[in-house]
């Protein structure tokens, strides 16, 4: 079983080394691929120094385009298992076994770590507007996929070969996790949410500001709504 960790990173020279190191410490058999999507800093160098392979995109394709590069790499290189861990350090590689378990047992094609699924009240702290946005999207998505989805924006995920193949072919762009959740459902892949705790960001700054969230929100809602009317869910290659 070949496994790869896909780590999207944008200007994360302060965090990416630690993330790569922690993934290797969790399981040294994981190949680590850092997708550097247009950083101005030493992200790519730091990642290489810590033993990761680096896919350096010539400009910022957005998080969706970056992550899909990793999925294409995983698909074309025949990996059976992939995990996605963000390069900013908010996902704790020590919790990889939690999100890997449902995929390894064959219970799910994709497992998503949720900040809000835990029942012990250890919530996730974030700005008010962002929490409202996440809640609203979770509500919309839960209605569509007919199961409770608490965290539609989580990028902490484990995927089997089927899910890797789907995302390598088709993955949404700017704010991809929400649309991807709906996509996975429409393709009848099995997905589960598992509770995880996420860390505060290390150094650096989140790329999401208030105005951007409004733009993303309208874009994502439009995409989800229109996507519901697609019969041919996966586009033909090259069309």
């Amino acid at each position: 079983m070949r496994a790869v960790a896909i780590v999207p990173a944008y200007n994360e020279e302060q965090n990416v080394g630690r993330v790569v190191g922690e993934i290797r410490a969790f399981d040294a058999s994981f190949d680590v691929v850092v997708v550097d999507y247009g950083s101005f800093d030493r992200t790519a160098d730091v990642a290489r120094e810590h033993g990761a392979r680096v896919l350096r995109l010539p400009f910022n394709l957005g998080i969706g385009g970056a992550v899909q590069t990793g999925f294409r790499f995983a698909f074309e290189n025949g990996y059976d298992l992939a995990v996605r861990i963000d390069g900013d350090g908010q996902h704790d590689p020590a919790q990889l076994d939690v999100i890997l378990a449902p995929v390894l047992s064959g219970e799910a094609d994709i497992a998503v770590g949720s900040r809000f699924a835990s029942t012990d009240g250890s919530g996730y702290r974030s700005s008010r507007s962002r929490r409202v946005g996440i809640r609203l999207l979770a509500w919309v998505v839960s209605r569509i996929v007919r199961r409770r989805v608490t965290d539609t924006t989580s990028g902490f995920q484990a995927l089997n070969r089927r899910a890797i193949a789907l995302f390598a072919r088709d993955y949404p762009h700017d704010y991809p996790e929400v649309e991807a959740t709906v996509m996975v459902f429409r393709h009848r892949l099995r997905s589960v949410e598992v509770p995880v705790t996420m860390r505060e960001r290390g150094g650096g700054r989140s790329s999401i500001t208030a105005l951007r969230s409004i733009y993303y929100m309208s874009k994502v809602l439009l995409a989800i709504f229109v996507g519901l009317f697609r019969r041919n869910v996966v586009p033909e290659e090259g069309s």
Partner: protein
Amino acid sequence: MTPLAVSIAGTIASLALLLIVLELIRSRRLRERYALLWVATGIALVVLSAWRDGLNTIAGWVGVRSYPPAVLFAVGILFIILVLLHYSTVISRLSDQNVLLAQRLALLEEGLQSDGSR
């Protein structure tokens, strides 16, 4: 007051625009990020065409007394300007990225050739 025929024609035309935009997104010929302004244009024109009292009120605010549908033209033109301006920024970004891609390709090709001749 706006003639009824103008309101009906305006509503039909802007609904058609909205449907075409949605169909283009559905068939993946238009990306959502480039469609948002078109959707906003369609919604604004539908609302202003169908909501006759609203159009009159807004026409009053901006000092158009003789022919309220002129506001429809103004709003339409405003949105067209916004869409064009947006496209100019998109084209600028695309041409910057194109330059970068060509440069990276040249560097890559040189690297491959000097690897091969070594």
